[in-house]
């Protein structure tokens, strides 16, 4: 890769985790070469993982010259601040303090709501509960649809012209969102209800820095134990 920076950068994680995906996108944006080290998450957890993240014992962990950084939001900001020059790589967080505060606010909001809702929906078999959870996810997406115009200021991404902090925070969850739509037959990121977000999602997934990092819905469906078939009738 032209302008790639060779450093001692390892990411402990699994390629399906949205939190890990955030870190990988950020590294790609900064053209930093890295090694993804898959670690054992089931008990007994990988010793490397426990040693480098003793507080939470969770992925992702970024190991830069052997020093660990934990929590995806913290890691992404670290990547943004550590690799600031060369390679024409842009800033992940916006430049102006107020815009940064808005991006951070929405990233906190996403993390407060989305992962828990996704986790709750995954094993849920009862139709009424699935519908309720889908409604809650759509509420979150609704607020982000509104926020998109404010943050993006008419451009293609939350970060403006380029993929930024908030794009990464939400975009990393797209694999799961699409998989749940298929697997549970519900509307989530509905193009009619959220036209801007739907267009943004396509744009995001097609981006150079993102391509291939967000696994296909089929990969997630395997976890759900659903056969990888094409989409059937429109969701409830």
């Amino acid at each position, binding site marked *: 890769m032209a302008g790639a920076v060779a450093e001692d950068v390892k990411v402990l994680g699994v390629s399906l985790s949205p939190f890990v995906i955030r870190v990988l996108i950020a590294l790609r944006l900064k053209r930093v070469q890295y090694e993804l080290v898959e670690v054992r998450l089931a008990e007994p957890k990988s010793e490397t993982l426990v040693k480098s993240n003793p507080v939470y014992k969770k992925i992702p962990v970024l190991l830069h010259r052997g020093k660990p950084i934990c929590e995806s*939001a*913290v890691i992404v*900001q670290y990547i943004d601040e550590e690799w600031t020059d060369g390679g024409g790589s842009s800033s992940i967080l916006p430049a102006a*303090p*107020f815009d*940064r505060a808005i991006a951070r*606010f929405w990233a*906190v909001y996403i993390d407060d709501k989305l992962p828990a809702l996704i986790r709750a929906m995954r094993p849920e078999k009862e139709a009424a509960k699935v519908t309720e959870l889908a409604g809650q996810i759509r509420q979150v997406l609704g607020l982000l649809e509104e926020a998109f115009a404010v943050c993006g200021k008419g451009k293609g991404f939350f970060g403006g012209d380029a993929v930024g902090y908030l794009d990464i925070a939400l975009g990393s969850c797209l694999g799961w969102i699409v998989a749940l739509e298929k697997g549970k037959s519900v509307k989530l990121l509905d193009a009619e209800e959220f036209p801007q977000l739907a267009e943004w999602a396509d744009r995001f997934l097609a981006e150079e820095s993102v391509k291939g990092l967000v696994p296909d819905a089929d990969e997630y469906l395997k976890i759900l134990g659903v056969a990888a078939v094409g989409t059937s009738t429109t969701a409830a």
Partner: protein
Amino acid sequence: MPQTASLHLTNRLHIHIVLESESERERERGARMAEAVVLLDVWVSPFGQRCRIALAEKGVAYEYKEEDLANKSPLLLQANPVHKKIPVLIHDGKPVCESLVIVQYIDEVWSDGAPILPADPYARAQARFWGDFVDKKIYDCGIRLWKLKGEAHQEAKKEFIEILKVLEAELGDRKYFGGDAFGYVDIALVPFFAWFYTYETCGGFSVEAEAPKLVAWGKRCMERESVSQTLYDPLKVYEFVCSLKKKYGIE
């Protein structure tokens, strides 16, 4: 303000007038600046206190607005429509929400004051990690200490002591969490120092016994005006929690 030595009478009068109008201008400037920064808050909120401490550390004049959470102001509802919660910092009419987002904003806007986050990216990452840890753990576990009974209470007590020990280990023998300089993690955690009495009384343990270095750190932080002028007496906090318990019908 320069001290006047013994001077010729007319000079003295001239200086007196100059000083008068200078301080008048300063007062006006201060008032204008204060209008530009408004903090929507509730007196006892540790999250609001983080913002107050950060503003004080930077020497930023601001207008404090006490909210009645049972009767939220239209301004609060407009400024934080998503959560309708305090604290909210309104700067030149633009609202910033989430206490640690606000603290980082204050650090970035008033960048000529003493830095809240360190300069080194790795140190900043560690500070953000621990600020986030405090955010995730203390308040929610603390609530369970005074809301719950029986098995659940014992569980909360065990967890809370564990949280204290993790923080104690992280602090180690350092003056502050950031090292020699008072900073982000200190600001994130120190408002809860005034809650230790409540937590240990409701929890049935001693914070000092479990985390002596943390208590010493808290006392050191209280030597800073920004902290001592912001935190309330632990007994007042305890009174507040007792009134909450009564409101929720908890014995």
